[in-house]
């Protein structure tokens, strides 16, 4: 006695796609093996897709979310004002900072009167989500398309300001303009805005 097979159809779009009946040619599986072999052999003559890594490097997208950078403004003052939004927005709780008040003789070092004395990102905790970059209201923190290098010691993955703040030297500054919208780039040309000078 064969059981009646119940069918469930909810839509009019369904189509049975698997065919389990084998033809005679498929039963003698030799043709299939030869076909498979031919496909594999044809790949011998195709262009290689592997990249010879240390010598050749893949193009990484400009907006890649990699190692962080703390920006300086045009005059080389650190932009960060230690508002703490980046630490607050970090889902991995990777950012720690201690704020301090700017002294009179530090005007050339820090842009705002409050600054981050200690600013640490634990790269082992960080998940490179990019939320800190989005949260920063001072254009201070950005992710870059560099990858955090490996290391032997856990302590060395806690990046302090020595590793995060970009170099003072104008030529060595890190260009993040590709990550910003055109409206922001347009806005940055306006030197009357207090943000830009």
């Amino acid at each position, binding site marked *: 006695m064969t059981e009646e097979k*119940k*069918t*469930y*159809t*909810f*839509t009019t*779009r*369904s*189509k*049975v*796609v*698997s065919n*389990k009946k*084998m033809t005679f040619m*498929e*039963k003698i*599986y030799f043709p*299939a*093996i030869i*076909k*498979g072999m031919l*496909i*594999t052999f044809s*790949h011998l003559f195709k262009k290689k*897709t592997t990249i010879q890594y240390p010598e050749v490097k893949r193009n*990484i*997208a400009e*907006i*890649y*979310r990699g190692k962080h950078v703390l920006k300086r403004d045009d005059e080389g003052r650190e932009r960060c004002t230690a508002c703490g*939004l980046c630490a*607050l*927005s970090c*889902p*991995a709780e990777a950012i720690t900072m201690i704020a301090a008040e700017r002294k009179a003789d530090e005007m050339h070092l820090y842009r705002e009167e409050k600054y981050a004395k200690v600013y640490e990102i634990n790269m082992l905790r960080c*998940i*490179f*989500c*990019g*939320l800190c970059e*989005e*949260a920063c*209201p*001072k*254009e201070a923190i950005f*992710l870059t398309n560099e990858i955090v290098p490996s290391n032997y010691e856990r302590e060395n993955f806690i990046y302090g300001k020595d590793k995060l703040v970009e170099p003072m030297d104008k030529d060595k500054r890190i260009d993040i303009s590709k990550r*910003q*919208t055109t*409206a*922001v780039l*347009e*806005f940055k040309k306006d030197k009357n*805005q*207090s*943000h830009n000078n």
Partner: protein
Amino acid sequence: MEEKKNHIEAEHKIFGPEDFEKNYSTLNLGPTHPATHGIFQNILTMNGETIEGAEQTIGYIHRAFEKIAERRPFYQITPLTDRLNYCSSPINNIGWHMTVEKLLGVKTSKRIDYMRIIIMELARITDHLICNSVIGVDSGALTGFIYLFQEREKVYDIYEEICGARLTTNLGRIGGFERDFTPSVIKKINDFLNGLPKVLKQFENLLIRNRIFMDRTIDVGAISAERALNYGFTGPCLRATGVDYDVRVMNSYSSYNDFDFIVPVGTNGDTYDRFCVRQEEMWQSIKLVKNALENLPEGNYHMDVPEFYLPPKEDVYSKMEPLIWHFKIVMGEIEVPVGEVYHSVEGGNGELGFYLVSDGGRTPYRLHFRRPGFIYYQAYPEMIKGSVLSDAILTMSSMNIIAGELDA
């Protein structure tokens, strides 16, 4: 003495007392077995090569995401969803964004919907590429896997161009996207769509009508439509049994009903059916992405969601009011409606649901992820009972259970 008795009782629960008279052996399949592609443990009772019983263990990589989510503002939950089914994380991200939008009552524009369709279908292709090529590997055909993985890399390049990351994407924002598709993204998508059919066809030539593959997969790990429905199967695993349930059609979201596509079904829910259903779904996804890309309307890439979408940066840098909003959003001090919502999307391997209870605070009061893999795994012992060990491995990979999603 007491302890020993308890121990024997516990063992009896797994194997049954009569099993001790027979000469069964116990085999630990997993948790770190290379063939299981993830952290799954199954305690198998073997009679020679045949599996007499199985008991699955869960929780090896449980990270308590649902609990963590109760302490996180809504926008910080997106990175958590990345880590559910990491083979198709953009679907999880977008599913979560749509859940919050549903709670807020935000209606997204056609452009955002179509952009989302493009990304979600690309993610579905990668998910199925991985699953199907791994079915090939587990049945002994490693070559196809290598050809297909090259295509997956291309999709990851597309993600990288859109959001900046490849695997854990954190793509999109509540209310739209963080940035628009650039011309290079469109070009990469088009290149991918032009290249994929050839590779996919070649892969099908290698496997789909090959007798060795068919013998290995037909009637392996079969489950009837009734049993599958009772367990709560969804996605390709349910469609393989012949039930044409697809969330995209039944409960359309993100303007999926603007497009016409076929819902492929199988016949008796075995591994070969699951393979064929996924294969056809990839063809349908290619069509969907093409259609969506052609009909992509002009417009903004995000909606006006003042509760969640950050104000434009140039305003934040220069004006007081946007700056205050920016602070409020990032700190999560915004007002959300009180209520419960359930939203589900057709994930890479089934219906991925988000059940969100909000008490109006900055974090969800309760959040539950309906993970399809968790449900498939319940049926696994039943599906492998009576088969041989190598078929059990094939069954597991064909269900596409992802450890990250199983344990959440």
